[in-house]
């Protein structure tokens, strides 16, 4: 049993089906990036996992505790940072965190020790006596993260932890999450794909309430149609080259992208995913004696995967 596993989760709001038959699991120690366009159902799924929204059908379990049968036990194992980080504005940072720690069942000296620990961890020391109302967005985000960390939960669910931050703050939060992943399993949602590529070891892409893909970033980018695409520029005859290249076993299609000034021809060779046709392509062109000035194998990014999976046109 993994840290999180969902079984046929559904959520409807009136007639609108926000989440359809979502099944995924997160193993202990993974950092999972939850991706999808706005309104895809990321936040809804996360809210269901935390027990805030009850699922219309299906269920899920956190660290082996069913969210419907043992909601309190499931919540004890997770720390949640909601989107936009709602906080009590009239409380001070330390006071708020101590209150949250007590709610999570800490008591006595344990509260002070634990709050001190998360304050250090999230770099809130200089703000511990400040009113939450006066904090900047970045510090609010840190308070939210500190709150999620209280009580050392095994699972952290972070809903857009870097939303609305400037690049420096994003970098700081990213570093923090990377550090946290040593002790916690992390499930985070974000729009910043480069971020996911950098820190996540598993990606779940959701669109229209359905899971489109769940795999490691490398696997996802590797299996993409765009993977293994090679673009070539050479000077010479078009038909012969296209015929020769088309005879290669891994090549699926050759697209002529037009001629460039100076007689250069530009081709795109679409091959099986995960193959490298650069060497054979170059060999064919040099055997024909044509000059070759550019050969490039396209490496798809997560962004390509995302766009390919969630495009609606």
């Amino acid at each position: 049993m993994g840290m999180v596993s969902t079984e046929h989760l559904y959520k409807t709001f009136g007639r609108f089906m926000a989440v359809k038959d979502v099944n995924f699991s997160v193993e202990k120690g993974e950092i999972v990036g939850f991706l999808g366009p706005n309104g895809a159902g990321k936040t809804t799924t996360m809210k269901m996992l935390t027990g805030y929204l009850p699922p219309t059908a299906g269920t899920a379990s956190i660290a082996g505790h069913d969210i419907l049968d043992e909601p309190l036990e499931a919540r004890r194992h997770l720390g949640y940072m909601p989107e936009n980080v709602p906080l009590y504005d009239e409380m001070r940072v330390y006071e708020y965190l101590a209150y949250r720690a007590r709610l999570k069942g800490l008591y006595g000296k344990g509260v002070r020790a634990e709050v001190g620990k998360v304050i250090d961890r999230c770099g809130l020391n200089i703000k511990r006596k400040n009113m939450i109302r006066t904090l900047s967005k970045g510090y609010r985000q840190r308070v939210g993260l500190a709150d999620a960390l209280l009580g050392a939960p095994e699972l952290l669910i972070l809903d857009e932890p870097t939303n609305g931050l400037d690049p420096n703050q994003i970098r700081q939060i990213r570093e923090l999450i990377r550090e946290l992943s040593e002790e916690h399993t992390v499930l985070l949602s974000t729009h910043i794909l480069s971020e996911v590529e950098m820190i996540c070891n598993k990606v779940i892409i959701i669109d229209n309430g359905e899971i489109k893909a769940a795999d490691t970033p490398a696997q996802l980018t590797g299996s993409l149609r765009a993977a293994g695409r090679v673009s070539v520029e050479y000077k010479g005859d078009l038909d012969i080259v296209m015929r020769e290249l088309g005879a290669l076993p891994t090549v699926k299609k050759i697209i002529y992208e037009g001629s460039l000034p100076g007689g250069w021809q530009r081709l795109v060779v679409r091959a099986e995913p995960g193959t490298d046709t650069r060497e054979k392509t170059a060999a064919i062109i040099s055997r024909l004696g044509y000059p070759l000035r550019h050969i490039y194998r396209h490496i798809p990014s997560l962004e390509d995967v995302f766009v390919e999976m969630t495009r609606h046109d």
Partner: protein
Amino acid sequence: MKSQEETPPGTREKSESEAVRRRTSWFATLRTLYLRELKVYLGTPFGWVILACTMVLLGFCLQAVIQIMSKSTGEGVMYYLLNNINFWFFFIFIFPLITMRSLAEEERQGTLEGLLTAPVTTTQIILGKYLAAYTFYLILWIPLLLYPWMSQLANLYTEYRYNITASGEIPYLLADWFGPYAILSLMGTFFIAVGLLCSATTRSQIIAGILCTSFMISFYFIGRVTELWGEFPAAPVFHYLSCTEQVSSFSRGLLDTRPVVLYFTLALFTLALVKRVVDYRRWSR
């Protein structure tokens, strides 16, 4: 708050990450929620403004009471204070003011999400808010107890300043004070619960306030129906529900168990309804 260190031996920390000791006491969580809510009333200007305004308005009432008492005596000061249209005029607005923000504001700010994703039950959240609002409501009536003492001070001052032995005195008589406090606390149990219910149905404090105010006004007038329509077959129901009549009998020292049952059952029923509403709003969203 005493620190409670009664972890049984053997459950002590095993590893670094296990070092966080937790307890899962239902009442400890309730107390945490209760104390925070109470802090909202007493630690921000919000509660103090209500308290100050209530005091000023009670002062106006006392002014009217002194006028009445100079002509007719026979009942205690609390009787005249509570059976006074001036009193009811602001009394029914106290409840919406106290309760309108409690759940509506949590919902608007989104902090309800944080609460409900902590290992806390809806019942604990609602009871915490209810008890805190009720405690604050009781605190509102504490300064009234100063009136007898203040009347003595005033007498001393008159004696010193004008050399007249003043006789107007508000005595501390258990008979005068117990009844009114009993009915005030009884009405509070139900009306605070109603306020909470109104606050649970919406995310806007204003709407919660309007709902609660209109309920309070209707409830007040239901109690006065018999004054308008006279006695008719269903009149006993209106007498039973009449908070003005209850206040009048209690503040004369006539204690009755019927309002005790009425308000306790209504309060319990309303609180159960609040829980339903909070859960329902989550389910239906």
